């Protein structure tokens, strides 16, 4: 029997559970004697803590304890970086609770433990905090002055400069016949999850064991951090992954609460639960994206790109968090996107400010850099009188050029190359699907009060971060199989896709895969989690490896049982047979288990094209999407249903970033967007006309499945494409959007400026 579950549109196994209300989220857990943690957060952006008086709070009935930095012998532990852990970042890492200074509005100052969250919040109002205000650093410009320092011993508000280099950009620019320089910027976003974060910790004093529920994304790594911080052996800590309402790169990184809640549980020897509320979520979960580029592009007169040069500034917020440098690295490493750029000299400057710290958010650095390169390309096309689509055709990396090396980045010594693909093919497909040849005749036309605009943009999406992923297969009592994964589930549908992959590998029906357990530290010996669109490539390939070992183990056990050679054993759906018609039920091997792993240091690059047809009401500055098409090639499609969900879902997030979302602060570092009436997310009615087409024409050569990471491509090109479509619609006003989000005010201002210029 040869299965073909891989590639089939299998409905998500997890959905039945969710639709029946049987999902189990961390807030559903309520052990006896649980105390609710509520966190006092700084309302001051930058200041020196003089005192925290908790006496009045402790008198409130129902308040058990208030924990501050003083309760941590030796001072609060520091959260180390997970990715790019450079020594340069050390001085900027975050303590789990503020003890000398506060550096952003929302920084934890104290943890109240009470019999209900409401009583805990009552107690917050009774805690007296004295903070001497320091000059807030409210922007990267203010940071660059180094007048007010977030970290005095560091002597600078700049934590690092990444250098992306390829070829000899200075020489190339000196001889270039055409150069254009632009300043462009992107808004501050975050990976807002429907379910805010939550942690529930239980301390078993007798066994010396700590159980932490609410783990996500990278439970094994976080266990290593927590074990060190809290002084326990790793195997005394169990991290349990529950159902979660979204990850997007933000959930599951190690945050202050990931220490504070386990610490509190051990401190009071009672279960402690903390559920983040939305206001906290907006100011405590990693921010992302706020960058400004001052960049130049050099081209031949025929539009052939010669080079990219310049600087990108990232507003990092107050601390270098676990994965905080990824976006700032990516924004220069991937500025060229899918285009052939022989010369690159881009610096990425990381500025510390009194804002919530940044981390990764779906398509980190890629959304930003795609906005930059796509805006530049449309400006180049206009300047040189070249068709926008032809310009892209001319510059896309050709399949014959694969694997294609991209700019290397120092000081992390990142040298990468794209793996495979025909970028041009995806572009042509996208143009066909949106009907570009016919419809784009409407470019710039005013019809019934609305200007029509079109844009097209191409992207690559990185995936498959190494170094390793693990999987384990086990025979159940009834002869069915359970799959244990080191990968984490953050809503991607891993229970379904890993069951597909395992069923194909084992050559059994899918319903014989009884469970797919994932993420928790008690399922496999080691795991690396869910980030960088890695689960299918890494976890899926680990399943293939585990299958080999699993089959070998069954053959060995069967040979022993039947008294024959292992090579004579045949493994059926639910029976194991040997020579001479002898066989036995697989169930007799219940408990047999084998692990496998996939090791990998290369990355996959899925790719594709976005195209948009929009209309703009120039008086209101209002944009409506008439049609939006994404074509993405992912090497090998495991499940087209979940894949389309990923593409459309990430596209909507990208459109949110392009049109609506912006986390704002005033000059004093006060947070202005603490509700969902201020931070505007796309709602169901905002972007109804989105389509995607997924293909697997060009498998990745770097893994046995041929798959590529595919969870982020929908978001990457959305900013650049929407800005270019607005420019295209409003060409009669000479509108050139240079920032995101494209708010009605901003679009209206572009129209006004165009009208003023025309009048002069």
């Amino acid at each position, binding site marked *: 029997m040869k299965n073909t579950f891989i590639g089939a549109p299998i409905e998500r196994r997890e959905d039945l559970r969710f639709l029946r209300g049987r999902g189990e989220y961390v807030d559903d857990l309520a052990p006896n004697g649980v105390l609710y943690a509520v966190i006092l957060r700084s309302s001051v952006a930058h200041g020196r803590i003089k005192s925290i008086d908790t006496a009045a709070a402790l008198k409130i009935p129902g308040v058990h304890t208030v924990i501050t930095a003083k309760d941590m012998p030796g001072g609060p532990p520091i959260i180390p970086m997970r990715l790019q852990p450079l020594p340069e970042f050390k001085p900027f890492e975050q303590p789990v609770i503020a003890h000398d200074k506060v550096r952003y509005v929302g920084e934890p100052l104290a943890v109240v433990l009470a019999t*209900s*969250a*409401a009583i*805990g*919040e*009552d107690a917050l*109002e009774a805690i007296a905090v004295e903070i001497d205000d320091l000059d807030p650093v409210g922007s990267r410009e203010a940071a660059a002055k180094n007048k007010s320092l977030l970290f005095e011993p560091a002597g600078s508000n700049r934590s690092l400069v990444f250098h992306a280099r390829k070829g000899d950009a200075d020489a190339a620019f000196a001889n270039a016949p055409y150069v254009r320089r632009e300043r462009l910027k992107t808004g501050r976003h975050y990976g807002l999850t429907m379910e805010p974060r939550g942690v529930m910790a239980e301390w078993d004093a007798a066994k010396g064991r700590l159980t932490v529920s609410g783990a996500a994304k990278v439970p094994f790594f976080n266990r290593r951090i927590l074990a060190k911080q809290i002084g326990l052996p790793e195997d005394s800590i169990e991290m349990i992954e529950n159902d979660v309402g979204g990850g997007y790169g933000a959930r599951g990184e190690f945050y202050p609460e990931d220490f504070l809640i386990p610490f509190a549980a051990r401190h009071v020897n009672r279960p402690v639960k903390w559920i983040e*509320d*939305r*206001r906290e979520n907006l100011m405590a979960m990693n921010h992302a994206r706020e960058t400004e580029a001052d960049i130049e592009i050099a081209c031949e007169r025929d539009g052939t790109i010669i080079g990219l040069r310049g600087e990108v500034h990232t507003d990092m917020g107050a601390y270098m968090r676990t994965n905080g440098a990824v976006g700032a690295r990516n924004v220069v490493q991937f500025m060229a996107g899918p285009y052939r750029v022989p010369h690159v000299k881009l610096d990425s400057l990381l500025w510390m400010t009194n804002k919530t710290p940044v981390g990764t958010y779906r398509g980190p650095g890629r959304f930003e850099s795609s906005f930059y390169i796509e805006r530049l390309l449309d400006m180049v096309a206009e300047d040189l009188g070249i068709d926008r689509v032809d310009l892209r055709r001319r510059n896309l990396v050709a399949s014959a050029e694969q694997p294609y090396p991209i700019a290397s980045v120092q000081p992390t010594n990142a040298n990468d190359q794209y793996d495979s693909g025909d970028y041009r093919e995806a572009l042509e497909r996208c143009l066909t699907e949106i009907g570009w040849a016919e419809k784009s005749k409407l470019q710039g036309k005013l019809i019934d009060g609305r200007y029509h605009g079109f844009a097209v943009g191409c992207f690559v999406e990185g995936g498959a971060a190494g170094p390793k992923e693990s999987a384990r297969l086990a025979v159940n009592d009834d002869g069915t199989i359970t799959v244990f994964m080191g990968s984490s589930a953050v809503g991607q549908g891993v229970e379904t896709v890993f069951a597909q992959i395992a069923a194909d590998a084992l050559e059994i029906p899918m319903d014989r895969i009884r469970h797919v357990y994932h993420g928790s530290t008690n399922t496999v010996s080691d795991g690396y989690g869910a980030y960088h669109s890695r689960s299918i490539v890494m976890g899926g390939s680990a399943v293939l490896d585990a299958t080999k070992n699993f089959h070998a183990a069954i053959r060995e056990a069967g040979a022993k049982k039947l008294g024959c050679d292992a090579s004579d054993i045949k493994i059926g759906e639910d029976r194991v047979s040997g020579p001479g018609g002898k066989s036995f039920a697989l169930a007799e091997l219940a408990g047999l288990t084998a692990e496998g792993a996939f090791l990998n240091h290369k990355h996959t690059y899925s790719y594709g094209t976005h195209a948009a047809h929009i209309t703009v009401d120039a*008086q*209101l*500055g*209002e944009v409506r999407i008439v049609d939006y098409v994404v074509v993405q090639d992912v090497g090998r499609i495991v499940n087209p249903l979940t894949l389309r969900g990923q593409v459309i879902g990430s596209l909507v997030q990208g459109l949110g970033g392009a049109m*609506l979302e*912006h986390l*704002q602060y005033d000059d004093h570092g006060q947070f*202005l*967007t603490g*509700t969902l*009436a*201020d931070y*505007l997310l*796309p*709602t169901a*009615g*905002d972007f109804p006309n989105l389509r995607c087409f997924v293909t697997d024409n060009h498998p990745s050569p770097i893994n046995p499945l041929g798959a590529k990471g595919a969870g982020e491509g929908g978001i990457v090109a959305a900013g650049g494409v929407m800005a270019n479509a607005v420019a295209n619609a409003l060409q009669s006003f000479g509108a050139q959007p240079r920032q995101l989000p494209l*708010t*009605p*005010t901003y679009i*209206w*201002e572009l129209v*006004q400026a165009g009208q003023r210029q025309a009048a002069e």
Partner: protein
Amino acid sequence: MKLPPFEYACPATLSEAVALLASHDGDAKAIAGGQSLMPMLAFRVASPSLLVDLRKLPGLNKIAIDSDGVKLGAMVRWRDIEDDERLKTAHPLLKAAIAHVAHYQIRNRGTVGGSIAHADPAAEMPGIAMTCDAGIAVTGKSGSRVIKAADFFLGALTTALEPDEIITEIRLPAWPQSRRFGFQEFARRRGDFAMAGVALYYDPDPSGKASNAHVGVIGVGDRPQRLTAVEAAINGNTIDEATIARAAAAASAAVEPQQDIHASAAYRRALTGTLVERALKIAAA
């Protein structure tokens, strides 16, 4: 975002409710649909010592229509207005405006009286009350009175309502069938509070010229306002391109909008003119 501690009462009569409100030195708060008050409690920007739930008060959920006009009980919900076929002719401007209020879930709960009492500067119902010279009937410990909308809204979230007074009814004057009207608002997402909104009507005289123009705006000041300069630009004129342009310019000149995270002041000023222009075109069409 858990609610602060408060006492709760759910009286069965208006006089009981008033007595409860009067008993807490101005620290009691009436709750109707809770669509504004509950978030304020969750954010702890309001923490009354007593919540007086109005849901059991009899007779406040009726829409009465007679020759005097439309009387909306204070507990009438947005959904009731949407569903009431009579309002298509009895007060089409009200119906047009209420279609813009928030989302289904909120429209099922939110009440006319709650919106008036909350007095958000961008809310539709206070804007309609202001535009249409509504009377706001209230009852307190010293009796009942009717407050003119123009005297009712004092600023952002601030009204002439005494702490012991409860809104019982919104009275909208009768709507002549020949009246022309338009309602326009623009928000960043449908259902959000508008960056600006315009409600307007006029009565054409036999020669087709406009009279009795009422033009109200929301979202561009600390309270809903009438724009008398725009009304003057409309009255006595045929609603043609020139009149519309004059009215729109007058509207932009008349408002003093604020800047916030959603829109600049200059944008709101221009938007007000654009919405007046569009509402007038719809009215005249």
